C-alpha cells in the first residue's frame, strides 16, 4: 500500500517568539510543499501563540556540523541532519530496503 505521503519531504521548523531574538529549532514535520509546511508548523508548534515568525526549511537543505569525534571510518555526512531513512535514496525496484 504505497502512500502519497511517502513522497512528502521532511521540513525543519524554526520559530521566533514574541520576545525572541532569533529563530529556535522547534522540531520537524512532513508536508507536500512549503506553504503546507508553514500552515502545519503554525498548527503544530504555535497553538499558544508562541511564535510571531516561522521558518520552514527542507531538511535536505540543511548542512550540519559533525559531532566532535570524527574518524576517517565514519562518513561525516554534513548534509544529513538525522539518521533518517528517507535521506538515503532507494533505487527503483529494490525491495526490503
Amino acid at each position: 500500500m504505497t502512500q502519497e505521503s511517502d513522497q512528502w519531504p521532511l521540513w525543519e521548523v524554526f520559530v521566533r517568539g514574541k520576545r525572541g531574538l532569533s529563530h529556535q529549532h522547534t522540531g520537524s514535520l512532513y508536508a507536500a510543499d512549503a506553504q503546507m509546511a508553514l500552515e502545519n508548523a503554525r498548527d503544530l508548534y504555535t497553538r499558544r501563540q508562541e511564535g510571531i515568525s516561522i521558518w520552514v526549511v527542507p531538511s535536505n537543505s540543511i548542512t550540519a556540523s559533525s559531532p566532535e569525534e570524527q574518524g576517517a571510518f565514519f562518513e561525516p555526512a554534513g548534509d544529513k541532519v538525522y539518521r533518517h531513512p528517507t535521506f538515503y535514496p532507494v533505487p527503483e525496484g529494490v525491495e526490503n530496503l
Partner: protein
Amino acid sequence: MGNSKNMTDSGSDRFEQGFWDKIREETRIEPKDWMPEGYRKTLIRQIAQHAHSEIVGMQPEGNWITRAPTLERKIGLLAKVQDECGHGLYLYSAAETLGASREELLAALHEGRMKYSSIFNYPTLSWADIGAIGWLVDGAAIVNQISLCRNSYGPYARAMVRICKEESFHQRQGYGIMLTLTQGTDDQQAMAQDALNRWWWPTLMMFGPHDSESSHSEQSTAWKIKRQSNDELRQRFIDITVPQADHLGLAIPDPDLKWNEAEGHYESGEIDWDEFWAVVKGGGPCRRQRIKTRVDAHEKGQWVREAATAYAHKRASRQEAA
C-alpha cells in the same frame, strides 16, 4: 588489512567511550552521535509507543466532545484533544531522528506490532470520566514526563519539556470538571465518585510493573533513559493526588490507603496484577475499537493526503508558468 581492522576497533571503542562519557556527564546524546544499537532501538520503541499513546488517547476523550455540558467545556476539551495530537507529532518527529520512518511506525501500530499505553483501552462512560482522565491520567503522565525531561537523548528530552508545558492545562481542566461536579447535585457527586472508582487503579497501572518485575529497567537506567523507578514515580503520584481527592470530598477506592507519618508517604493496597497483565497483553475493553478507529481514520484520510500532494504539484506548475 590487519592494521585497518585494529584502527576500526579502537575507533569504535573511542566512540563508545565518548558515548558513556556523555551519559556520565549528563551531556545529551544527539541524533548524529555514535550510540549503541540497543540504545537506538530501545528509544525508537519507547518514543514511538509514547507517540502512539498520544494519538490513540484522543479517542476516549474525543468521544465526549459532542456531549460536553457547556460551550466552555467543549472548547476546553477540543483544545486538549488537539494538544494530544500535537504531542504525538512531536514524539514521532523525535523517534524519526533515530532513523525510524513514520510509515513504518504507523504500520506497526495498525498491525498490532507496537503497543500504546493500555490506559486508553478503557471506556469513557460518563462526562465525569473526562474530568477523571484529565486529573488522574494526565496527572500520572505529568509525573512520568517530568522525570523523562532528564533522559539522555536530546530530541526526546526536548519534546518532554515542550509537552510538560502544555500538560498542566490538561490536568487543571480535568480537576476543574471534578470540582464542578463535586460541588453540584447528588447525582453529579455520585457520577464523579463513580468515575474515580473506575479510573484510580488503571491510572496506578500506568506506571508499570513493580520494580522487581520490570525486566528492561536496569538497562534503561544505565543508559539514563529511565531516571526514576516505576514504584518511585507511582508513589510520588499517590502522594500528590490523595490530598487533591480529599479536597474534592471524594474517596479513593483503596481500603488500605493510609498516611504513614514516619515515612512521609501514603501506604496503599496491592494492584490487581492479573488485570494489569491481561490488559497489557491486549485484553482492554476497547482495544479492538481503538485500533479499528485508528486504522479507519488513516485509510479514510488517504484522499486528503493525495489531494494535498496533487495541490502541491498544481501550485508548483502555476508558479513555474508565472
